[in-house]
């Protein structure tokens, strides 16, 4: 009697454990319980604007901060890390001379000369890349963002020839082997061989009601907002500080402003 009672207890404990484990496994599989997979509710409150723009306070930027922003961007968009001519650039850094080659004074202050200037797609008001794209794979959204539709890109690279800022990169090879495992974001697609890519002002995060990835980690050095709303933070900043845009003579009217 005693032993059978013990056996019964063991069996009951084991089956309770089994039931619990079964339930846990089921919960793990069910999509309703997985919190980080975006659902329809994720996109209910998107950020909207008349014309998105960015102000970059270069005085706050160091090499490390540029790299921090670039890393956040790579991580969000599965940007491959490739050295040399096949490099894929969304957010990167350059010197003042590289950033503003036709606005460089004969004698430049040492501080500015050595400063790391963050560079990205300027999301121009009159984008050259959009005008030359034969398939409308690159197009301008109503809110000013110059967006890429990878499904339509045929890899002709006219846009790369057209862009005065070198903000576009071609995938000469399958980028997947060059994406670091720890920086991989399964919720954002990778690219394939033969398409051109560039910064998109994080349209997928704006749709979720979040700020772009680089702005989030920039420690206030990047200001993102609505250029079409005169009461916005970015317009307030533009009223206060003197800013310049890259290559004004190219006539593309960039939406990215630099405080020097």
């Amino acid at each position, binding site marked *: 009697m005693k032993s059978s009672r013990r056996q019964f207890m063991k069996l009951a404990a084991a089956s309770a454990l089994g039931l619990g484990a079964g339930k846990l496994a089921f919960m793990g599989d069910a999509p309703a319980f997985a919190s980080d997979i*975006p659902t*329809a509710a994720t996109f209910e409150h998107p950020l909207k604007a008349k014309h998105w723009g960015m102000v970059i306070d270069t005085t706050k930027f160091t090499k490390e901060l540029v790299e921090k922003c670039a890393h956040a961007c790579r991580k969000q968009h599965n940007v491959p890390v490739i050295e040399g001519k096949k490099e894929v650039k969304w957010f990167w850094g350059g010197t003042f001379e590289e950033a503003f080659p036709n606005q460089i004074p004969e004698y430049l202050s040492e501080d500015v000369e050595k400063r790391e200037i963050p560079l990205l797609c300027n999301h121009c008001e009159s984008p050259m890349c959009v005008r030359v794209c034969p398939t409308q794979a690159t197009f301008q959204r109503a809110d000013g963002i110059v967006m890429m539709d990878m499904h339509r890109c045929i890899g002709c690279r006219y846009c790369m020839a057209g862009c005065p800022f070198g903000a576009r990169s071609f995938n000469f090879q399958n980028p997947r082997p060059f994406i670091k495992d720890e920086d991989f974001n*399964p919720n954002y697609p990778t690219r394939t061989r033969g398409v051109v890519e560039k910064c998109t002002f994080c349209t997928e995060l704006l749709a979720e009601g979040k700020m772009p990835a680089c702005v989030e980690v920039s420690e206030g050095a990047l200001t993102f907002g609505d250029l079409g709303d005169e009461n916005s933070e970015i317009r307030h900043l533009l009223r206060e500080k003197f800013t310049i845009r890259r290559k004004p003579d190219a006539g593309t009217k960039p939406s990215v402003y630099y405080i020097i």
Partner: protein
Amino acid sequence: MYNAKYIIPAMIVFIALMLFPFFYGTGTHKYEVQVELPKDQKECIEAKEVMRERHMQILDEWRNAVVRDEVRIYTNAKGKKFSMSLTDTCMTCHAEKDKFCDRCHNDVGVNPYCWDCHNISPEQKTPIPPAAEAPAEGGGH
């Protein structure tokens, strides 16, 4: 016609031989694709028949809506809302591509290039999908 007595029977034999495989196979095999359906979900975004016939059009509409028209929420016939995402919505339930998508696609010889870029699961840990690559040759898209 010269040598009609040879030519006509020979042509009949030739045509019979040519058509033999078609008659031989007719009705003997039932065309059936066995796909593994998700065990914990009963309903897809639309009815089974709609999905069978139109899933490719729906995905095409989705990609234009999301990328070009800034619409990311899909409302189905019953009014239920879904995120328009191949990886996050479709592949969350149909977690194993090789047991669902590939079963049909391989049989009918289509090779859609969705997964050249899109991840096969929102839980995927590395950029290189763990499943074997789709057959390189054959099929368009």
